[in-house]
């Protein structure tokens, strides 16, 4: 951009951008609820997709932006789901308050788990988070207040598409703003090289714990919604396999790409619904697709890129096409270079 930007034009630009985004989100909501509003089955899948968007993006914040391997997202989800369900069934406090308190407790547990374990690196952290999630599940299985092996039955059906959609939108909005702030840059620095980040004065423990509990908070929020959608909260809903489901969303969408996670969450929710008729083959196709995506495109579908507002503007499309062509050409050239023995 060649024109000189003063403070005022930047602010107006930002505001108009935000207005367009809000408009798009409201428009999408209106479009979805008008086209599928009559069909309870589709609304349910869309609600589930929104919940998965929350879980996928919050996991991506920990995994893709801060580089901390978390294999226990379902555990935090369980904390939120149980808390909200207990509050709704026993204390009849308003739904939103219950969701919020569940998320808060999940965030707090995330803080407790994060403080000791985030000193561990890489794979050790992955196993510790996995262990904590499993401990949370076994605790729920053994406590009276959580209903033991029976779980909590008869949770009122309070989660509708409106709740899930707007909470997902807010989650994504907060996470995107966080990532684009100086905090987000600190996190990316930790992901790229923890030691270098520390040397540059980034308080690595602080940011790791912050991101971890933020991710846990949103997972708890999504868990509350999930419990009130299924109307039953059961320990078997929050196994290791569930954590893997969200890991798959974050990794397939592309680590470090929020739009990638959003798209992967929606796509995978619909895929697993579409395959529901073929119960036997469903998991085989799912697992096979996962392995293939990883082998063919290990950086995930979006590979750290974001789909941005500008990308939707047809006036820019010609430029993208040129860029893409140039990149392919340079890729081919570098490949040829490799063959000649230059590495």
């Amino acid at each position, binding site marked *: 951009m060649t024109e000189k930007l003063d403070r005022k034009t930047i602010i107006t630009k930002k505001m108009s951008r935000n207005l367009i985004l809000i408009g798009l989100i409201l428009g999408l909501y209106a479009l979805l609820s008008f086209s599928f509003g009559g069909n309870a089955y589709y609304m349910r899948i869309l609600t589930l997709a929104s919940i998965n968007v929350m879980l996928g993006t919050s996991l991506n914040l920990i995994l893709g932006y801060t580089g901390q391997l978390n294999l226990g997202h379902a555990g935090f989800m369980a904390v939120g789901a149980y808390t909200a369900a207990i509050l709704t069934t026993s204390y009849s406090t308003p739904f939103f308050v219950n969701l919020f308190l569940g998320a808060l407790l999940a965030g707090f547990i995330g803080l407790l788990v994060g403080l000791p374990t985030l000193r561990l690196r890489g794979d050790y952290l992955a196993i510790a988070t996995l262990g904590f999630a499993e401990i949370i599940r076994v605790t729920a299985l053994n406590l009276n207040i959580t209903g033991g092996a029976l779980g909590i039955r008869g949770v009122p059906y309070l989660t509708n598409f409106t709740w899930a959609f707007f909470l997902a939108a807010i989650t994504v909005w907060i996470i995107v703003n966080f990532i684009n702030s100086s905090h987000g840059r600190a996190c990316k620095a930790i992901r790229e090289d923890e030691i270098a980040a520390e040397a540059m004065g980034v308080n690595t423990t602080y940011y790791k714990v912050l991101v971890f509990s933020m991710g846990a908070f949103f997972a708890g929020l999504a868990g509350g919604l999930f419990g009130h959608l299924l109307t039953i909260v059961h320990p078997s809903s929050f196994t290791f396999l569930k954590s893997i489901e969200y*890991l798959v969303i974050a990794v397939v969408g592309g680590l470090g790409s929020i739009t990638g996670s959003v798209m992967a969450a929606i796509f995978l929710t619909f895929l697993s619904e579409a395959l529901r008729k073929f119960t036997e083959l469903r998991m*085989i196709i799912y697992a096979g697709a996962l392995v293939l995506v990883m082998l063919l495109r*290990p950086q995930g579908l979006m590979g750290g890129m974001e789909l941005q507002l500008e990308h939707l503007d047809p006036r820019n499309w010609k430029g993208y096409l040129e860029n893409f062509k140039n990149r392919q050409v340079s890729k081919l050239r570098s490949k040829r270079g490799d063959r000649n023995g230059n590495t």
Partner: protein
Amino acid sequence: MSEALVNFLQQLVNGLQLGSIYALIALGYTMVYGIIRLINFAHGDVYMVGAFIGFFVAGWLGEAAIIPALLLAMIGAALLGVTIERLAYRPLRSAPRLAALTTAIGISLLLENLVRLYVGPNFLAYPEMIKRVNHYFGGVLISNVYMIVFGTAIVLMAGLQYIVVKTKAGKAMRAVAFDKDAARLMGINVDGIISLTFALGSALAAAAGILVGITYGRIDPYMGIIPGLKAFVAAVIGGIGSIPGAMVGGLVMGIAEQMVVGYISSSLRDAVAFFLLIIILLIKPTGLFAEFTQEKV
């Protein structure tokens, strides 16, 4: 002997038997991690496949065919492990580590569900390969099954230790684990050694699968998930990458689990492993046997 002591010794015997199985599985995790720094999530499912190969061999040759069942299952699982490494992990060796980990999880799901498609989701009764004979030693029950399981595990571990410490291939394996690039420069076939590591680990897991089938009498396609995780935790407790560590870690895990089941509650069975893990990670994150490594910048 007093009743309390008999009870304690009984739990100890049960724990040793369970622990020897964890140790066999943990060895595969620790060797693979030591050599390519990958948590091979599919390892628990290789163990499951091994148990099923034993099941079918016994159905084909008769119940008494424990030796052929063991050998064929070990060979089959070794081939499976090598194939998985060749097709799924080798292309990703230079990719981000998370990609390889996700692939491992994908392979794990794939194996579980392929087996499930073939045999159905239910438990299968395992053939009684050994006629159970109960022996009592001062009131402590040690059946011949326990002795055979423990003995087989010890023989296999001793064999592995021999291969790793005394043979040329074992020396190459340790060299690759220590520094892959330097090993390659010394003329070691690194890819071949990695394949060998997968083959050895998978064969041990298959043996563990058969031993579990014999002891508990039933198998199912999802039997590998929890023991797989526990065995990995055992490997971490012993110090991942260390072979004696995996053996000791497995035994510690088995005994701890059996003690909690015997003295507190069996519903905590699956949580023990993770409590142990958290404690060890907080006190000595490198595990009991790992060497001190300086972080390189």
